[in-house]
């Protein structure tokens, strides 16, 4: 079992996300993370999906994606050859005894405080999924009230882009 990340350019049509995720569900592919957003081209959206499975699963997933008419382009993003990050908002209890430790950890990870009240602190952290996991793990020593993560986004290093077929 390997983790892999795939970027998919899709036509920005009504229901396109449903088409993609419906295929994942039907063919029983895992989705570890999924993000969708508009791109530099108005008609296109970019889906970044990370999944896990055998090499054959990955091939099958890519081949099944190609069969969706709304899919314009697909690229597997190699972890070392791309810049990948994720954003997390985390709300922890503001406890006078742990406050200083939380602040130290946040500064070590580069997390920014966005909201500070007597009862709670909201911090924002961007980084790799692993960094976010590590920070979350650290925060478990205190009281985590809520977590919200975006899922990963990724671009290839250098000037290469995901090639676009005609729309």
């Amino acid at each position: 079992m390997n983790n892999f990340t795939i970027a998919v350019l899709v036509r920005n049509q009504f229901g396109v996300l449903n088409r993609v995720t419906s295929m994942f569900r039907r063919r029983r592919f895992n989705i570890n993370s999924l993000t969708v957003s508009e791109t530099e081209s108005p008609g296109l959206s970019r889906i970044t999906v990370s999944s896990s499975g055998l090499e054959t699963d990955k091939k099958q997933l890519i081949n099944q994606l190609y069969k969706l008419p709304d899919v314009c382009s697909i690229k597997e993003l190699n972890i070392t050859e791309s810049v990948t990050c994720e954003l997390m908002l985390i709300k922890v209890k503001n406890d006078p005894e742990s406050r200083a430790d939380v602040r130290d950890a946040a500064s070590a990870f580069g997390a920014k405080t966005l909201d500070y009240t007597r009862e709670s602190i909201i911090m924002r952290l961007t980084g790799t999924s692993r960094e976010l996991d590590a920070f979350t793990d650290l925060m478990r020593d205190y009281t985590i009230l809520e977590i919200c993560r975006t899922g990963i986004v990724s671009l290839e290093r250098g000037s290469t882009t995901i090639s676009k077929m005609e729309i």
Partner: protein
Amino acid sequence: MKLSGADIIVRTLIEQGATTVFGYPGGQIINVYDSLYKYREEITHILTAHEQGAAHAADGYARATGKAGVVIATSGPGATNLVTGIATAYLDSIPMVAITGNVPTTQLGTDSFQEIDITGITLPITKHNYVVGSVEELADTIREAFRLALSGRPGPVLIDVPKDIQTATCEFTEQEPITPEPRQAAKEIRIRDAAECINLSQRPFIYFGGGMTTSGAQDELKELAEILDAPIGCSLMGISAIPTDYPRFLGMQGMHGHYACSMAMHRADCIIALGVRFNDRVTGNRAKFATHAQIVHIDVDGAELDKTVSAAHSMRGDLKLTLQKLIPLLQQKKLPEWRKTIEGLKAEERRTLDNRDGLTPRSAVLTLNKYLNENTPVATDVGQHQMWTAQNISLKKERRFLSSGGLGTMGFGMGAAMGAAIGLKERSVLVTGDGGFGMCLNELATAVTYKIPMVILLMNNGVLGMVRQWQTLFFDKHYSNTVLERKTDFVKLAEAFGATGYHAENLTELDEALKKAFSADGPVVVECMIDKDEFVLPMLPPGGSMDDIITKVGESDE
């Protein structure tokens, strides 16, 4: 020319060459039916008894003609009744365009009367589907649907048209019929690698499926077989792509395939698989499937490669174009040893053939064969009769065997046989069972209304034979809900519908009934009585390998 959306739908269908369509009217598609009335000189609409029958008829029309079948239904239940028909076409890669009406755009999503999310429902059983958002995009959406349905690996496409889009108007300019996406051969380098592998083979076996008919690569197939001195087998979907009596052809492979064909495939050292997808009914236990063989797999759908069986050489490409590039790279073979093995297997198959006197499933199909001409399309339902037909039918031309291979839809045959008869303007044959016929016999009314020449050979054994066979073999003869014990008089039933019916207890009666049926004007039901304990043999038990093949069921077992 300014037209309403409804007119645009019908004009675009005519433009795309869809001059016969199947369907059933209703409230949210009534405008389209008004346009069908308006343009009735240019387009024929066949009104079926049920939307499912219409979908199967459009499917049968497509299978027989190679054109996209068109089916039209209203919103809600009209649309949901299409689902089995669309899924049947999807699993067998049949080009179909389904058009459904829906409630006006402003009412979508409010659970209006007869509103259903048919695009959501059909997402996993269509190549693509659309909800049309404006009348301006309607014509191009239909054109795109035809292009998708017919390109690459064909399949069904659904277009859902809200009522307000049907009534809105816009400018319409007729265009040329679409051309499917250009076909492409597989990559040269892959073809070269595959050729090397095939050239080393001592026991090559060619195995083709439905993709053979879609690609029209029969000439290349025969050339390949001659060069390799190889036997040919097919999947259920491949039947009729080449003549049944073609000398190198061993017939169908799989769970109930021909003995020689299945064994030859098992013994081969190289399987050249053309337009097939190695379904579980073909491979049995995948771990034990063709363990001695290198597989060379060519398919137009890349997702079929290495999906269930991993091939030594897999290539995405059109069969015809790829074979044209592959064949010149192959060395002429002479394989007397392999030939001898095949001849031995064929002799073994002849020994196990059911040659009993009297009316048996096999003798019934052999009797039917006498009356087929080379153009007669033969449809089946699903079950024992389907396998008996697949094993024993004799066909000369491509697109003449219509059977629900992937989905295994009981009730498919009635609609399919009607669609094929209409598409080819030929008398069609339906071989069915009392179970399958019971599911869609309402379409007998349609066949009578349109005077569709059809011979319905109904093998009546009073049981759901295929399930019962499994119960006999694997469930200690617990015949749970497979004994029909119905009191239906099929001769009277046929007559009540306005058709003709015959009843045959023996071969002579069957022969006489068929003789009359094949000269009748409209549909004729020929009921022939089959013993409930008849088996489909050989049988590869589910999940078994060729070592587990059952060729005989002992008397003591019964």
